[in-house]
């Protein structure tokens, strides 16, 4: 197992390197740079002013030199400073990532609780009324874009009913409880389609197991139905669901980019959007690297859990 994990971690290094390189390359292909973005709204900025700002940011140096400089910094844990606010990128990201993680966690919890629950109920009585309702809702859930769900939730629960805040991560100095409350609506918006995916996966997987030889054999032995389902069927059905949950958790970090805009939520997603608009390349790079790193970690964890749950995978490994 140790060998398996260390191999995976080593394999991630060239991947992150490629990610940073490509992000650097692609963002530099975007028209305009930080100097043009920052002076965009200024009626008196002459070409010389723009050039002066560009030089002060070091953006007039050859592309390769900027790249080598940046990578050198990254290797030493220095992600540079924001071109827009001059704040160190690591500081910006660390102040924002907690919120995004909390959001993704709430979204994942909602996806797991609702998705697994609904999937089990539907999967135990395939093609019944409940199953049809769950499958229908799941299809709807997958079809609804998460930002639209977010707008709808804000309209109903924040604007019309006034039960929950419309956005943000609490007022300055807000208590822990207040901060948690601000997570509810964006968490649901983020978790809805994920819950639908999980429900479909859980249902399909459970039906497959229930119709398989294992359950038939257990039934023949006269085990109580309850025990068959809880001890044996669910455990086997959970393996592919787990992989899906891992993938969805990673995808939530991407979804958070849109949801954070809808809820004016201060996470790395909204940080990234602002940074792209201001051509704040060090911040864009920092966010891409961070998200990439988190995705890699989630995938490794998913694989490890998968291997420890699935005897077949363990056999393959050894």
């Amino acid at each position, binding site marked *: 197992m140790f060998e398996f994990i260390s191999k995976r971690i080593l*394999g*991630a290094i060239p991947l992150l390197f*490629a*990610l940073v390189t490509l*992000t650097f390359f*692609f963002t530099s292909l*975007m*028209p*305009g740079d930080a100097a043009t*973005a*920052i*002076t*965009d*709204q*200024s*009626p*008196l*900025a*002459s*070409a010389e002013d*723009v050039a*002066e700002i560009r030089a*002060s940011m070091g953006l007039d140096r050859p592309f390769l030199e900027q790249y080598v400089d940046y990578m050198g910094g990254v290797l030493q844990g220095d992600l540079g400073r924001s071109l*827009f*606010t*001059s704040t160190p990128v690591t500081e910006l990201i660390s*102040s924002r990532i907690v919120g995004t993680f909390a959001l993704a966690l709430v979204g994942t919890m909602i996806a797991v609780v609702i998705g697994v629950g609904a999937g089990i109920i539907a999967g135990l009585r395939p093609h019944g009324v409940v199953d049809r309702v769950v499958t229908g809702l799941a299809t709807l859930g997958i079809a609804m874009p998460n930002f639209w769900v977010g*707008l709808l939730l*804000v309209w109903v629960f*924040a*604007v019309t009913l006034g039960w929950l*805040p*419309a*956005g*943000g991560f609490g*007022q*300055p100095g807000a208590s822990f409880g207040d901060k948690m409350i601000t997570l509810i609506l964006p968490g649901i918006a983020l978790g809805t389609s994920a819950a639908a995916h999980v429900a479909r996966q859980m249902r399909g997987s459970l039906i497959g197991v229930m119709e398989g030889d294992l359950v038939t054999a257990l039934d023949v032995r006269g085990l109580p139905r309850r025990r068959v389902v809880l001890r044996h069927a669910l455990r086997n059905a959970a393996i592919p669901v787990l992989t899906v949950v891992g993938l969805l958790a*990673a*995808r939530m970090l*991407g979804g958070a*980019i*849109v949801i954070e805009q*809808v*809820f*004016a939520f*201060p996470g790395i997603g*909204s*940080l*990234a*959007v*602002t940074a792209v*608009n201001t*051509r704040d390349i060090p911040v864009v790079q920092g*966010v*891409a690297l961070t*998200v*990439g790193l988190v*995705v*890699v970690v989630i995938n490794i964890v998913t*694989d490890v859990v998968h291997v420890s749950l699935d005897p077949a995978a363990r056999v393959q490994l050894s």
Partner: protein
Amino acid sequence: MRTWYRYFSMGLVAVMGIAACGSDDDTSGTGDATDAPASTDGSPSETTAAPDSAAPSDTANEAGEDGPPAGSVLNVAHRNPNQTLDLHQAQLSSAQLVYLDPLYDSLLRREPDGALVEGLATSWDYTDDGKTVLELDLREGVTFHDGTPFDADAVVANIERGQRLPGAMTAPLDNIEAVEAVDPQSVTISLSQPSPSFLTDLASVAGMMASPTAFEVGDEAFAVEPVGSGPWTYVPGESDPGSQRVYDAFEDYWNPVDQGVERLVVFEISDGAARRSALLSGQLDITPVGAPDVDPIVGDGFDVVTVPTSPLGWLLLDRDGEIAAELADPRVRRAMNYAIDRQAIVDVVFFGNGEPNDQIFPAWMVGASETPSAIYDYDPDRARELLAEAGLDSIDLVVNSLGALRAIDEVVQAFLADVGINVEINIAEPGTLGSLNRSGDHPIANGAYGSFHPWETVESVIAADGPLNPFGTTDPAVDELIEQARTASDEDAVAIYEEMGRLVAEEAWHMLSFTLLTPFGVSPEVENFNPVVGVNSAVVRGVTVG
């Protein structure tokens, strides 16, 4: 290898997802230049601001000398993020005033109607005919938040720091040749060349004053813990840059009437729908909103206060026909102006939140004419005649566009097509429209052309070396007027700018559509909110919450 591909594609999706959510719903990202106005004749213009809001600032608040009501909090939002709280490093337009104004006092101040009044300076006067030597008397008994007294040496220190640092908002200070502390309460500023907008500049970021003691910690540290003399002090511990800025009332403030609340929180929210929802659910008290949101917000019992800001439309830059040969003929440029129905554009695209306008100096601008006469009516037949006179059946043009401008441009496109002018709309990347406008590679500029004073517009759009005159076109009559305006008295200047505005409109240097009316959504609890003409962010001195 299977998983390798999985990570890879996700990283890409994340980055591309970001790029796709670029532009917002409002024009602010598209070239809505500095907002703002100011000037010297105190007469309020009819178009000035605040139709729905309560009384003007002299009724101020009931708090009086006792300071703001304990525990009172005002929550304000703005669409553009705060770049820095260091006034001398601020690069962006005066949309940043919402972040800077609570913290810093300026030497002069602009009233909601744009008139210049006393700030940290109690009187000011040019002492020479050439208008290059300015004497200012300074207010006594003012201290910065760190206890440093405000005096002439503080003014000198601020001007010198502003000249040393590259902030675009303090660029007008570069025109200062010398600044001298005559005695602790008066300074003399000598300009390299006369600048009719200099006093207006001193009423905005260029005239703001920070504590010279605080400069000693270094430029980077100052930006983190800025110290001014304004009604509120900055609270770095509770602020979250990129999300919210927190300010608490300063106990020893010299003008407590400005401090309507004990705590001010400014949220940075780029998404228009999120700002509207936060207002309607009670999380915000004042926020700029999009034009389509105005009616629903009023329907929900909230107030909407509008303030005129930038003229908006196209600048027909290539007047010598270097790239688009047809634009060299003034008849073609006039035809474009006759072809569009400005009222229809305002009504259809901006839900009435604009004033049809064909002139570069908007009516609200103090120092410009209050009622510039419209030159172009909607007259498509006249447009076709002019094109025929120019010997053209149809012409083809390309214009760069972005965000909310695109909706306007599509309507303009239809009007122009009706008379035989075919326009292709090229969608620019966010943050690049300004540089495309100034590049000299495009015959037409697109956007909003805000300033606080006619002279700023002259320097930007009309002068031969103006950034928004990239082809450097000139006209002897216009040049003559520019020279006259440079040293004219404020009274005489009004007629000069009116003549200049009329001239460039008749020569059709531009095809403007309307002057933006920027709407602010305001909670019914709020009193005394009077936005300042030309400023598209909320300036909240004197505002109280019920």
